[in-house]
C-alpha cells in the first residue's frame, strides 16, 4: 500500500514535533503541511511584493506566484479556469461576499433556501440579508440522523427561490449532502446554488463541474494551508453578473469623485491587497493534496472512523449524532455523553493528550434539532492513526469514571 499515516504525519511539522499529540480537531483547523509552509516561506524570501500593480521583476514574480495559485485552486476544483477563483479571507468572508453581491439583486418575496445543518457562517450572513432586503429564508429540514431531508424538496425550492445555499458536508455530523437533487431542483426554477465546502476540500479533490453548482466556498486553514485565506469559486457567467462587494484598490476600472467603474472578475471581488503569501501557500497545499493516494487514504480514515464509532457504541450513555453509514459521511464523529458536559469531557481528554472540541460547533440550529446544547467532536484526517482513536476511547472511559 502506498499510503502510511505515519509517513503522512511526517509532512506536518507540528505533528512531527509533537509525537504524543492526538490532534482530532481537524474540522476546526487542519495542521499546516510542509508544502504550504515551504511555499509561504520561499515566497516571502524570494518574491514578496504587491501584486497586479508593479512592473519590476520582483512584482512580476509576485504576480506570477499569485496567479499560479489561482490556477492551482482551479485545478483542484476542476474549474473552467483560474479567472473563476476569487481569493478571500476564508469561507466566512466568501459567503458574506456572495450574500452581499448576489443579495443586492434580491428583493422582498425572493427566497433563499438553506438547511438547518448549516454552520453559522452559512446561516448568519443570510439572516443579515433577510434584515437588509426582506428576502425570505426557507430551511430544509433534517432527518433524524442529521442528513438533509430532501423528500419534500419541491415544497422548499419554489419559483420564488433565487439561491440554494447548503453545506457540502456538516461540520458536526459529517453527513455529506446529496447535491444532485438540490441542483436539479434549483435549475428547474432558475436558482443558483452555493455550496459551503469548508469541510469537504480537505477530504479529497472536488469537481465543481461534475457537481453542477454555481458557487463554492472554502478556507485554507482547514485544508492544511495557511490561515487568512479562502476561496470563492464561481462559474464565469455567475461571477460576471455580480456587482462588487468591498470597494478599494485593485477592483476598479476608473475612479473619479463622481462615478467609478469595476474591474472584471476575479479582481472585481478582491478589493485591496489580497492575502498573497497565503494564497501561494494554499495553492501549494492543494497541488500536494491532489497528488496523494486518495483511495488508500479514504480507506484509512474510514477504517479509523469505523473503529471509533464501534468503540463509542459500547460506552454507556453515549448518543451518536449523524448517519452511521460511512458512505454517507466524512470521518467527523460527534456525540454526547449522558450527564457529562462536552467541555468537561474535552478537558479530561486533553489530559490524555487528545485534542477534540466540545460545544455547539457554530451550528446551533443543528444542535437545536438534536435537542442538545453541545457535543464532543472528533474529526479525522489521513494523518490520524489507531493510536489517536485508542487514546480518545481510553480518555473517554477515564472521563466517565471521573465525572460520571
Amino acid at each position, binding site marked *: 500500500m502506498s499510503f502510511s499515516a505515519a509517513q503522512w504525519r511526517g509532512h506536518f511539522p507540528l505533528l512531527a514535533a509533537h509525537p504524543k499529540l492526538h490532534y482530532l480537531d481537524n474540522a476546526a483547523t487542519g495542521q499546516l503541511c510542509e508544502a504550504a509552509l515551504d511555499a509561504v516561506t520561499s515566497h516571502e524570501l524570494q518574491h514578496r511584493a504587491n501584486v497586479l500593480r508593479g512592473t519590476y521583476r520582483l512584482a512580476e514574480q509576485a504576480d506570477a506566484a499569485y496567479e499560479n495559485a489561482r490556477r492551482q485552486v482551479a485545478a483542484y476544483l476542476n474549474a473552467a479556469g483560474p479567472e473563476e477563483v476569487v481569493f478571500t479571507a476564508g469561507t466566512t468572508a466568501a459567503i458574506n461576499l456572495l450574500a452581499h453581491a448576489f443579495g443586492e439583486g434580491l428583493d422582498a418575496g425572493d427566497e433563499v433556501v438553506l438547511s438547518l445543518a448549516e454552520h453559522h457562517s452559512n446561516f448568519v450572513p443570510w439572516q443579515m440579508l433577510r434584515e437588509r432586503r426582506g428576502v425570505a429564508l426557507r430551511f430544509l429540514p433534517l432527518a433524524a440522523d442529521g442528513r438533509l431531508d430532501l423528500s419534500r424538496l419541491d415544497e422548499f425550492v419554489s419559483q420564488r427561490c433565487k439561491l440554494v445555499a447548503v453545506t457540502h458536508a456538516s461540520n458536526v455530523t459529517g453527513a455529506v449532502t446529496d447535491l444532485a437533487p438540490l441542483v436539479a431542483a434549483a435549475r428547474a426554477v432558475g436558482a443558483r446554488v452555493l455550496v459551503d465546502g469548508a469541510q469537504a476540500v480537505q477530504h479529497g479533490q472536488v469537481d465543481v463541474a461534475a457537481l453542477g453548482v454555481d458557487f463554492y466556498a472554502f478556507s485554507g486553514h482547514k485544508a492544511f494551508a495557511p490561515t487568512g485565506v479562502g476561496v470563492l469559486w464561481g462559474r464565469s457567467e455567475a461571477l460576471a453578473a455580480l456587482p462588487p462587494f468591498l470597494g478599494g484598490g485593485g477592483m476598479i476600472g476608473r475612479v473619479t469623485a463622481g462615478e467609478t467603474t469595476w474591474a472584471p472578475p476575479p479582481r472585481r471581488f478582491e478589493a485591496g491587497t489580497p492575502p498573497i503569501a497565503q494564497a501561494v501557500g494554499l495553492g501549494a497545499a492543494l497541488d500536494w493534496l491532489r497528488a496523494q493516494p486518495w483511495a488508500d487514504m479514504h480507506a484509512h480514515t474510514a477504517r479509523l472512523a469505523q473503529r471509533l464509532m464501534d468503540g463509542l457504541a459500547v460506552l454507556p450513555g453515549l448518543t451518536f449524532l449523524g448517519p452511521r453509514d460511512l458512505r454517507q459521511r466524512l470521518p467527523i464523529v460527534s456525540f454526547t455523553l449522558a450527564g457529562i*458536559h*462536552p*467541555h*468537561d469531557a474535552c*478537558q*479530561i*481528554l*486533553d*489530559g*490524555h493528550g487528545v485534542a477534540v472540541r*466540545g*460545544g*455547539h460547533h457554530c451550528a*446551533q440550529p443543528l*444542535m437545536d434539532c438534536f435537542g442538545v*446544547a*453541545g457535543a464532543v467532536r472528533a474529526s479525522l484526517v489521513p494523518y490520524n492513526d489507531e493510536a489517536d482513536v485508542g487514546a480518545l476511547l481510553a480518555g473517554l472511559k477515564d472521563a466517565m469514571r*471521573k*465525572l460520571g
Partner: protein
Amino acid sequence: MSADDLYQQDILDLANSADGAGRLGAPDGAAQGDSPLCGDRVRMEVRLDGGHIVALAHETKGCLLCRAAAAAIGRRAVGLDAARVAALRGEVAELFAGQAAAVPSWPELQCFEPVRAHRSRHGCVLLPFDVLAAAMDNANRA
C-alpha cells in the same frame, strides 16, 4: 495533567449539590446568559429587599465548572447586595489572574483555583456571577 486537578471531589460535590436550582414564584428580577463558546445557558432569578437578595433560584445548563459556580451562588448569595456580588466576581477574576487574596470570602471559591491554568474555562465560572449581576440590575430597575 491539570485536568485531574480541575475535577477534585469538592468541585463535583458542589456542582452536584445544585444548591439554589429551580425557579422563584415571582422574582423581582431575572436574567439569562449564554456562553458563546458552548451554548451553555444560565438563568438567575432574585427577590430583593432594600437591594439585598432575600431569595434566589437558578437554572443552569452548563459544564461542571459553571454548575459549581451557580451552586456556590445558590448556597451563599442570600443577603448580598450588588456591590458585594461585584466584589465576589472580582475575587474569582483575581483568583484566575493569580492575584487572589489569601482566603476567599466564600470557602467554595477555593475549588476554582485550578481553573486558573485553563483560560478558555474562566468564562464557565464567571458566567453565573455575571448573570446574577444582571438579574439584580433588572430587579433594581423594576
